[in-house]
């Protein structure tokens, strides 16, 4: 277990550090690329949490889909755009950011506080799940389960999201279209 534990810490560290870097970086492209790292690290964490299917989806959709989408968007709209967008003014430590930092830290304090208060590991339902063997073990395959669930319990959201995606497609296409072209 120590390996997993170590892995967890490493992954967590990478995720957080890269997220912080992405947050602090002024360069957009750098920010985007370092966000890749965060996402990968998170995927790793998902694996550690025994959600391999989610991890894969994360990589495919987030990394493959969203980030590439972001990049392509700017690639397509020309180099000039990218330059303008990349340009950032100001110093590393910006007084204007102080309120934002305070807000984030306050939030962190509150969230950490309530997380600790909640005492997640001793929640009754978690204990009950362990007792009833409702816990996913590394031996289990989650994919089958997810598949069945998607077709039964979550059939409705599954179908609904398809409508949503279609709608998004139509809408996003409409917005990105150049004027005048059908």
């Amino acid at each position, binding site marked *: 277990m120590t390996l997993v534990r170590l892995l967890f810490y490493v992954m967590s560290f990478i995720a957080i550090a890269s997220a912080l870097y992405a947050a602090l970086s002024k360069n957009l492209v750098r920010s985007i690329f370092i966000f890749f790292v965060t996402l990968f690290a998170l995927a790793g964490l998902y694996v550690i949490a025994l959600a391999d299917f989610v991890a894969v989806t994360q990589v495919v959709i987030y990394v493959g889909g969203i980030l590439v989408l972001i990049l392509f968007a700017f690639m397509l709209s020309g180099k000039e755009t990218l330059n303008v967008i990349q340009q950032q003014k100001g110093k590393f430590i910006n007084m204007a950011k102080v*309120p*934002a930092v305070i*807000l984030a830290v*306050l*939030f962190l304090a*509150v969230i950490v506080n309530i997380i600790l208060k909640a005492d997640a590991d001793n929640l009754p339902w978690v204990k009950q799940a362990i007792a009833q063997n409702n816990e996913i073990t590394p031996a289990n395959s989650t994919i089958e389960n997810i598949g069945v669930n998607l077709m039964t319990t979550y059939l409705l959201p599954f179908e609904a999201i398809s409508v949503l995606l279609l709608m998004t497609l139509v809408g996003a296409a409409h917005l990105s279209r150049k004027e005048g072209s059908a």
Partner: protein
Amino acid sequence: MNNAISYTDPSIFCYAILAVALPLFAALINFCLPVKSKAAGWISTLAILVGCVLSAMVFAAVWNQQPQHVQTLWFTIGTTKVFAGILLNNLSVMMLLLVSLIALPVHIYSTAYMKHDDRYSRYFTYLSFFCFSMLGLVVVDSLVLFYAFWELVGFSSYLLIGFWFTKDKAVQANKKAFIMNRIGDIGLLSAIIIIFAKFHTFDIATLFINDNLVFKSVIHDGLWISASGQIPAVWQYVACIGVFMAVAAKSAQFPLHTWLPDAMEGPTSVSALIHAATMVAAGVFLLGRVYPLFTDSELTILGVIGCFTAFMAATIALTQNDLKRVLAYSTISQLGYMILAMGVGAYGSSLFHLATHAFFKCLLFLVAGVVIHEMQHIKEENNLDIDPQNIQYMGGLRKKLPVTFIAAVVGSLALIGIPLTSGYLSKDGILIQAFEWSEGRSAWLKLIPAGALFTSWLTAFYVSRLIVKVFFGEFRLLKKHPEIKLHISDGGWQYRVPLILLAICSLFPLFSLNPFFYEKAWLFESLKPAEFMARENIYHTIIPIGVNILSVFVMYAAYAIYVKRNTFSFPQTGFLYRLSYNQWYLDKIYRKAIVKPILGLGKTCFWFDRNVIDGLIHLIERSSRMVAALTAWSDKHIVDGFLHLMAALVQSIGNFARKFQNGKVQYYLYSMLLIVLILFVLKILI
């Protein structure tokens, strides 16, 4: 119909009602006539003539008989039934007859006097309306109706004083008269309301005559108690004060007398009827009606005020140069006598004097009317810039106006109270009774009869001065403008007949066959209080003799001063002279002390309305810039101007809410998150 009355002859009431209503019909008809129609005069005169006859019949039937009372339900308010009816007793029938008797000659006189006026029919409309009000006043039986006619009398007087409404002075005078009367009316209204609240009825008969509820009520331990309950005694005083205010306003007693001299701006015939004989006597009549309301001490105060008024007015009359003003002040003075008489308990003498005074004062005014008319004639004929009423321009008119002169002399002698005139009878009665009354009272109260006595000499002086200046000596206007020609005479029969009629009435035979003993007058005998003492003390002899001898001296003095100019004359700059000439400065004092503050109060209120109640928004706008000022003002805003406060509040809250809307989406996010967080934390902490 109330059948509680033992003896009822319905025709009497019909006559009385008709006598009252005829002038009203005349007024209505005249109102519909074209403004210049000459028929109006005769319609009114006819109405009053018939009224006069009817009044005489009523008088004959009721005089010295049981009071006659008839009433019908007027309306019901709550559980109170308000009746309207007629109450005929000695007092009212006397007044009924007196008023119509005086009004008749004045009507006749007016047909000539107003002949050339543009609004001839209006004049008679108003005059008839006045007669209706006055006659109504004397016969009604309910305090509400009494008040109604009381005000209508004032209103018609207002109309008549301001008859020449393009004259600014006339308009100001009628406004003043009405407002002064209004003050009195408020007093009367208050008194009526107090009496109503106390006795739950407005019926004069019940209150003062038949059951005499008022007399039966007592003041005890600070409470005014009667069978119908009790209220604090102070309201009895207030009621008396109210009645007194009414009396003072109508009968021109100090301090509400100032309107009467000004009221002389109206046509002279009006002055004769209203401001000498009838309306001003209404106050005395009111006192007669509600006499039981007054307690002894209140009557004393009445007497003091009456005496003071008589004295003050007489002193003012000494120096006035306006013919009518002198007469006006003499009227005030004589009214003072009447009030004094009421105060000293000489109820009968007071009313007796009222009656005699009505005749001779009306006469004097009509005389003045003739004189002024002629002076006006001269003025117009010769295009002079003079005041036709100023006695300084007159003199020696006895030759030009013989009838007028004789009438004037009769009237003056009556006014002074020389024997053989009616004035002697009534005035001496008052003086004698005043002295009798002061017997056994404190020394200060002795001043009352003394003052009255002194005033009678003053009267003798100023009346003589007037007569002498107008009728004796030489015509001063002619001296000044020798070129003018005089075409003046006594005028037509419409002038002469009334003068002669009234002059006869001013002599003793109408009232008493004994020219020297007032108590033998039939009018007095019927009105005197039951416990009247026969002549047994010295006053009955001394006073008539003393007064009259001295009066004759005074008259001669006046003659000497103004005609012969062989003795001293007054210093015309002395304090006393100025005090008298300026009518004791009362008008000025009133203007400064009352009118101005009230107008100022009005302006202040309006200023308050505009600037404080209404102008708060502007205030808030400014003060929001100056935080310091805000605190100072906010108190007022919260109290008064919430609307504008709200407007400002809305704006400031709105501005506060808007401040977040700076268009920056991240700022929105930031605010949202921060607010949520703070609320959450606060919620937990609290």
